């Protein structure tokens, strides 16, 4: 998957000092430009979540990019480098040279973005290699970034090495038009229910899963309810003549 083109904005309002969406300095170190750019996933417009209700606040013109932390340059610090070296070495000896898309070190946690084609081999290496030994998988968590074109759906794995007492995060992306990610159940049987749950909520199809069926919702449920484009599904609540719309249809800060 090719890294995203930098997005063009018509007009970008400067963030205020305490505005956390301002691009964070630790993520703007110059290096390989494609990998280290903060990943712009969305553009936030105005101050309020629900639009079209006649914004009289005067904040409707604010436009700011929403950026996730970008890739980090070497050295990552501490044992992060050991893991990255060991993983890179083990993968290249298995013939995979570009399995790791980028590495993000943020807030003391390390995230490896893995190309989905290489996921299975990567987790197998992570579990089996004596220098890595991530024998415990804490499951899969799906995240939906609707405006991150071509990488809408993310599957996030938290791995734990009890041998070395380390914790890493793997992130795999797939486009909404082709929501397939290889299943890791063969390596981590614990992912069985977690993958079913992620399928249920996000519609990510885990190829190779022994029985990918809905787990939380009824079998005949339409849609995947925790995607961002699925409404919260609340009903308006009436009390003594006043009606309050459900939380996702109220005007609220975003």
């Amino acid at each position, binding site marked *: 998957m090719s890294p995203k083109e930098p997005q063009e904005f018509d007009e970008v309002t400067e963030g205020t000092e*305490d*505005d*956390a*969406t301002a691009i*964070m300095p630790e993520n703007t170190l110059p290096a390989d430009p494609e990998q280290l750019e*903060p990943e712009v*996933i*969305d553009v*936030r417009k105005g101050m309020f979540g629900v639009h079209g209700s006649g914004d009289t606040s005067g904040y409707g013109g604010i436009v700011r990019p*929403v*950026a*996730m*932390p970008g890739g980090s340059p070497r050295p990552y610090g501490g044992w992060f480098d050991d893991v990255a070296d060991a993983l890179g070495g083990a993968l290249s000896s298995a013939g995979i040279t570009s399995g790791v898309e980028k590495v993000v070190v*943020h*807030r*003391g*946690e390390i*995230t490896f973005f893995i190309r989905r084609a290489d996921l299975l081999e990567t987790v197998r290496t992570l579990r089996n290699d004596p220098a890595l030994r991530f*024998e*415990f*998988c*804490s*499951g899969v*968590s*799906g*995240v*939906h970034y609707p405006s991150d074109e071509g990488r809408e759906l993310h599957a*996030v794995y*938290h791995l*734990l090495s*009890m041998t070395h*007492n380390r*914790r890493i*995060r793997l992130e795999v992306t797939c486009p909404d038009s082709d929501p397939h990610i290889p299943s890791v159940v063969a390596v*981590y*049987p*614990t*992912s*069985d*229910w*977690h993958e079913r*749950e992620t399928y249920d909520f996000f519609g990510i199809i885990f190829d190779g899963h022994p029985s990918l069926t*809905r*787990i*939380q*919702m*009824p079998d005949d449920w339409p849609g995947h*309810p*925790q995607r961002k484009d699925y409404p*919260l*599904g609340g009903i308006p609540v009436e009390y003594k003549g006043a009606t309050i719309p459900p*939380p*996702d249809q109220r005007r*609220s*800060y*975003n």
Partner: protein
Amino acid sequence: MNSPQDPYAQSADTTTGKVFTVTGQDWDSIVQGVAEEAEERIVVNMGPQHPSTHGVLRLILELEGETVTEARCGIGYLHTGIEKNMEFRTWVQGVTFCTRMDYLSPFYNEATYTLGVERLLDIEDDIPEKATVMRVLLMELNRISSHLVAIATGGMEIGALTVMTIGFRERELVLDLFELITGLRMNHAFIRPGGVAQDMPPGALDEIRDFIALMKKRLPEYADLCNANPIFKARLVDVGQLDLAGCLALGISGPPLRSTGYPWDLRKTQPYCGYEDYDFEVVTWDTPDAYGRFRIRLAEMWESLKIVEQCADRLADLEGAPVMIADKKIAWPSQLALGSDGMGNSLDHIRHIMGESMEALIHHFKLVTEGFRVPAGQAYVPVESPRGELGAHVVSDGGTRPFRAHFRDPSFTNLQATSVMSEGGMVADVIVAIASIDPVMGGVDR
């Protein structure tokens, strides 16, 4: 059995064979029906509404006589959409939602979420010491109450009603402490990003000391009643076996993992909230069965009591220290005061914002309606809940609300062991095996 008033008590032909609905006193008709069909296989559906399945868990068991050949779980009967609901509330309000996930260990849900948010805010080092000690205190008290319910309901499900009644009797003591400290018996929403909601009320430390003294008398009763009880042992020993390799493959943590003898406890191995400064032991057992897990829970309550005692000593030295972060951009303005009903708004604070300072009013309004912004990124800070590794994967897009909060709940993961633990055993042992995992359906389904 085909009474016209009762549409459910009947047999029906489906594509997969004849299906009987058992309603009591009609086992003969099933046996006869199976004999007629010349089929050995009986598939029994148990739950989701069954007194012994530990909540709204549905079990689909394939039986050969009394032996379980296959066991599968059906879950989702309590799916509440809490994770999605959290995306529409501010970061602080999220605590109110996640506390209701695993309702037997609310403080752990709050703690893991709060720790994640604090890591994203990069304020982990600014949390006042007293807030951290109070978190530990509440979490350890919560471990006691949760283990008590685990033992109590586990006992009830095998017919040991006395265990159930005494378990709930002691739990009341813990709940009284919770009520004193947080104002609520359950679902507290007390641990918040930046600290805890309120200071310790006057007299709480004495109550805690009384509680510790009383528990030290009461806990041995459980040991006397159960540890060597032949019926209890007959039901529990060697039931629900799962060895270390199985635990790791299935991602099992908590008492089932420690019952294999492997001392993995996040409080020791990856300390959070300053657990490295407390003196306690990680309890393990050498028989990975239901009995071992029961003994671990019992022993862990003692360890928790030890930690609670240390917390009480520390809190005694921290009289009057702050319990919320100093940064007023994050500290929720809930300066509550003691009113005639035991709790209420702080009149001083109201006077300040309404009468003295326009800026304070604006600030208060912004913080309450808009909330604070959390820098974009993601965090995962697991804690050792009574059931194992509980972690919240918190994702922020830099907004005032969580972009996504996913909870890795130990009940959900551990429940996957049902089939491994119960296949090949008796039907009655399925109940014991599940009770030894102690799943809480609120956590499983969220």
